[in-house]
């Protein structure tokens, strides 16, 4: 019998037992490893744009290629940054789905009818 389904004599609900199980803790850990750094990175990268455009307009008006300046290239790079993070997240997400499925498969829906 899988660990999650073992009978439990405390007043913890079935949800608590899943939340405290190792597979669920693993799921939360690998989600955190991706999502927190990704959020920090995109927020910093995004706010650099209005901060630099607002407070360093001279620097951002620097011409890089023909008439194209740093401000436009930095703004354009934001689109590719967003797409890249989205792409990486979809790949990481396949992993989350696999672990979630394992967890769901181990508990029968019957255990949860009383809690809904």
């Amino acid at each position, binding site marked *: 019998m899988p660990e999650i389904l073992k009978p439990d004599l405390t007043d913890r609900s079935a*949800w608590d037992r899943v939340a405290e199980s190792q597979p669920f803790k693993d799921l939360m850990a690998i989600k955190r490893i991706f999502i927190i750094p990704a959020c920090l990175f995109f927020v910093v990268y995004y706010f650099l744009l209005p901060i630099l455009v607002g407070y360093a307009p001279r620097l951002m008006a620097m011409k890089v290629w023909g008439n194209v300046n740093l401000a*436009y290239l930095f703004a354009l790079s934001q689109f590719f940054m*967003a797409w890249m993070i989205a792409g990486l997240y979809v790949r990481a997400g396949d992993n989350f789905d696999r672990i979630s499925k394992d967890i769901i498969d181990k508990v029968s829906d019957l255990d949860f009818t009383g809690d809904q």
Partner: protein
Amino acid sequence: MSASLTMFLLFIALTLGITYWASKRSAGASGYFAAGRQIKGWQNGVAVAGDYMSAASFLGIAGIIAFQGYDGFMFSVGWLVAYLTVLLVIAEPLRNAGKYTMADVLAYRMRPRPVRAMAALSTLTVSTFYMIAQMVGAGSLVALLLKGSGIGYNHAVIGVGLLMIIYVVFGGMLATTWVQIIKAILLMSGTLFLSILVMSHFHFSFAAFFGAIGHVTYHDKGQLVVKDFLEPGLRYKPPYGALDLISLGFALIFGTAGLPHILVRFYTVPDARTARHSVVWAMALIGSFYIMTTFLGFGAATIVGRDFISTHGGNNMSAPLLAQALAGDVFFAFICAIAFATILAVVAGLTISASTSFAHDFWTNVIHHGRERQAGEEVLVARISAFVVGAVAIAIAIVLGPTANVAFLVALAFAVAASANLPVIVLSIFWRRFNTTGAVAGLAVGLATSIGLILVGPSLMGIDPPTVTGAAGHLIQSKPWFPLENPGIVSIPLGFLGAFLGAILSREPSSSHKFNELLVRSNTGLGAEKAASH
């Protein structure tokens, strides 16, 4: 009959056909509110794009870039990057733990009635403000586009209002979804074609295109000026410009993930995995569209010119006038029809999210303690409230009139979504200690501060020159008390602070005890609402 009118009628006929088809299929509550949760990932992605890209982002953004250059492009960037918040933080937990509205997720661990009542108030506020801005825009736009056909502002507002009521009342979420999908496809193809035409004007030389942007000429107060439109600073000027730009960034990045009409779209797919894929589809379309605003906006500035646009309908007409200059009247009519479709798809999305929240959160859960007194009551109430919401929006738009200054209403919707909705959703999902008092306080503080700061900000307070009169001018003729157009930089932290203080100053053990349930549900999809079987 003009070419524009013909294309408008074709689009209306097609969408009414879809509504009839959808009305036969959307049985039951989950059929009506969530299209049976059977929408495919790519379909929902395209529909999210169609739900999101409003008249403000098609006509408005082209106009802002055509008139104020680079600073306008900053909106384009924020509108895409915002989807990372939706993708990484909101979409999957919402789909896993909710049923029809964002309040479903909030109500899990808390006392449902106060939380749902506040969440419904916030949802209705955001949707109504946003809708009024769209309706006034639609009225003046359609009147302008169909000039000479005898269709005026009031007719246009009533027409748009009636159509959105019909889509939502009879076709529910399924019809709304397909109207949004068709609109997104039309918008993307029209924009792509227009961009190619702009580049062919410059013989497909990017050097020539960006070179032309370097010296845009127009008249300002009678003086001929030459400006480099790629340089920042034409819109956001000192002393507060930089801060306003950062504050705008806050509202866009954190507001999108709190917009009720975007959030409800994630309930239409079978599971969280599909919700994730649909955000990525939406990001592909939305990103490509906003990159192409480079060609629309700067193309209008260089090829058509500010002076001509000013005397031919103003900056909102930049994209249609560019189409006319490059490919003549039929393409002009096509772009106008796309603008019309754009508005309809967005107002339909707003109507269904407002009426769903009223019926599901307020009627069923607040007034009747979560029980339907008879089968089908919730859907019936939603249909009636969709009708009422539509009628009220029509009436307000007619009273305000075509010259009303409504652009600030869009900023207001984003500010409320970012300052009231987002903090409370995030803290509910991630903070064990969060509770009912915190949620109600967060929603109330976020709502009050964002509305309050816009009321005393430069959108509504200002001294107009004597030439500006009536609804076109500032509501309060006095120097603004708050210097920023966008209150996000102040109101979002205050929303979080309100939620935090409310939670730590009150005790509610049951909310912490039920945190594990929400944590497991939102992260694994255990016990999530299933798709209807075929």
